[in-house]
């Protein structure tokens, strides 16, 4: 089962390496990882996507929590979090196919980021599943390049906070 973990870390050199090294040596796989600044200049947020059962997930959280730079680990429960991802896709688009592709993009809330004589670069922001769907739609046209940021997320403010359950508060 897939889980999204949101990890607040001190913005210190090597913090990301310590986390990724822990995953590697404990044999946990990271499906995607996105890291960036937060509302505090001295804190970064890492959003991790992992595919594992409940027991290894608990191990991951506990082992991460032992790292000195890690401030908080919480799981973003589906339905309780807003999750987004950005993707850029270079798709083959000869002039006669261009119109069809652009219509497709409009229907999927993607936009044209760059246009060349035989290709188009789309950008799409959305829930990762929407990006999956768009990817499948353009693939038959010739998907030449694809890059995704990995998902990021925050807890929803519109639902009561149940997710404290998953916050790691064993200590």
């Amino acid at each position, binding site marked *: 089962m897939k889980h999204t973990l949101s990890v607040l870390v*001190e913005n210190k050199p090597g913090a990301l390496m*310590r986390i990724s*090294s822990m995953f590697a040596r404990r044999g946990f796989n990271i499906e995607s990882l996105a890291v960036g600044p937060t509302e505090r200049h001295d804190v970064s947020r890492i959003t991790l996507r992992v595919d594992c059962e409940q*027991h290894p997930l608990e191990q991951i959280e*506990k082992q991460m929590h*032992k790292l000195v730079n890690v*401030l908080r680990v919480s799981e973003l429960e589906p339905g309780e979090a807003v999750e987004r991802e950005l993707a850029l896709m270079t798709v083959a688009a000869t002039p006669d196919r261009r119109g069809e592709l652009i219509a497709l993009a409009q229907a999927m809330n993607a936009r044209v980021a760059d246009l060349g004589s035989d290709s188009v670069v789309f950008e799409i922001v959305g829930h990762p599943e929407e990006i999956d769907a768009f990817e499948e739609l353009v693939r038959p046209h010739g998907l030449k390049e694809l890059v995704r940021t990995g998902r990021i997320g925050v807890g929803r403010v519109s639902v009561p906070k149940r997710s404290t359950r998953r916050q790691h508060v064993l*200590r």
Partner: protein
Amino acid sequence: MKMLGADAILRSLEAEGVEVAFGIPGGAVLPLYDAFARGSAVRHVLARHEQGAGHMAEGYARATGRVGVAIATSGPGATNLVTPIADAWMDSTPLVCITGQVRRHLIGTDAFQECDITGITIPIVKHSWLVQEVEELPGVLKAAFHVARTGRCGPVLVDVPRDVQEAAFDFEYPDDVDLPGWKPPKRGHPRQIKVAAQALAAAEKPMLYVGGGVLNANACDELLELAEVGRLPVVTTLMAKSAFPETHELHFGWPGMHGPKWSNWGINKCDVLVAVGARFDDRVTGKLSAFAAGATVIHLDIDSAEIGKLRHADIPVVGPLKQVLGDLVEELRRIHAEGAAPRTEPWLRQLADWREEFPLKYGSSGDALKPQAVLETLQRLTVNEDVVWTTGVGQHQMWAMQYLLCDRPRSFITSGGLGTMGYGVPAAIGAKAARPEATVVCVDGDGCFQMTGQELATSVLEDLPIVVVIVNNGYLGMVRQWQDMFFDERFSHIHLTHHVPDYARLAEAYGAVGFTVESESELEGALREALSCGRTAVVDARVDAREHCFPMIPAGAAALDLVEYPDEEAAQVP
């Protein structure tokens, strides 16, 4: 006060109460050693190899419970510390390693003796720092000592570029650490402790499975009280040897691969298993799914990540063991006061019967000196003496576990998790620096001794006399045993010979005293003399190479399937 970074390191160590640091100078730590030359309350012990320095710091830490300090230069000096750091990581030994680094502007240029030691050690440290500005130094060192000794103990590394050591700044040692992400548990949950006490009070066949965490927590008194109040039998793992008095009626040996049958039967047939600062290591459990199957598990540990890592804990308590065990005793007392007496006497009798029925034993074959006899004699000669034992890794280590009886906490120091050959001699030197009044004896193997034996020079010249007893079978003995038992006697690259080097003459070359023992009749005299001479002494005990270490649970086998002794039918499991 205005000073150089190098002096600030020493003032910081002094502020932490560090008595002794073990190290070797080199290019990138020249400023630090210049500061030593200017004077410090910290004694510096000059090792002969950085691995030795690291194990000495470990031996010091394990003998005292305080943080050990090792110093090395950049590059190869730092990489030579990797083995002790990994060892300290596996055995949760508090260690601060200070390494020199090339000047800041050279970092990343493949400069002479540059290596990314913080990167190399990430998987084996609790935390590490590459000090970028001299102003950071005091805060980093304060944090380093704090992290090393709080929560689950372990190693940290502080890498200091040479120009940071040379930079002048206004030194002030901070009172507090600034580590927002470091929050080791402060107290075990009272409700969980209550539940644990109830389970223990109701148990008919409980067993305390004690690990090294009890020593790190300085909770040996509380453990003893718990066992006595609850009439609870105790087995101690290799890492916990000496945490509970081994001549006590409630001590029932050591579980695991080379533990006696009665210890393994006890731990595997209990109804309530209390893991106290222990981590269900494969060398203890054997086949995990068959380990103490059916027992209710109470797991007490400072490290929440150990709870449920390998074995599900029915009643977990996360907290400092001194408090957790202390509160558990109080709870148990309360329950007893309400009229529920311990129900463990039949079980204790059963365990004692097994101990009678399946004693440790070994055969005698003519004149050949048996390795077990060396350990038995050592034990007999040191009863009631203040002895600290260290060991290498292998057969001799397991015999030391079986035959030496340690009643004082921190009197048995060994490499458990990493199984580091060569640990014994330097660890003994570190222990001697910590406990000069004690007799420090390293029980070593001939293979182990040859990995770090050069530290005899450190022992002799630094006036840290130790006794090294080499259980010399002329082989990499444990490998020989496995090749014999599991590889159809295809002995491959294990023969070291009894006579090269001549250990007694080697000892003399280092300025130590050397003894060679080839028969049982010579043994006691040589050991007596070595133990009482007050100098660094090496006893080369040339033992029967054919002797295997038994009992043995083959790797991956269930603990109840142990091979007691090869020549007889294993007794049936009742």
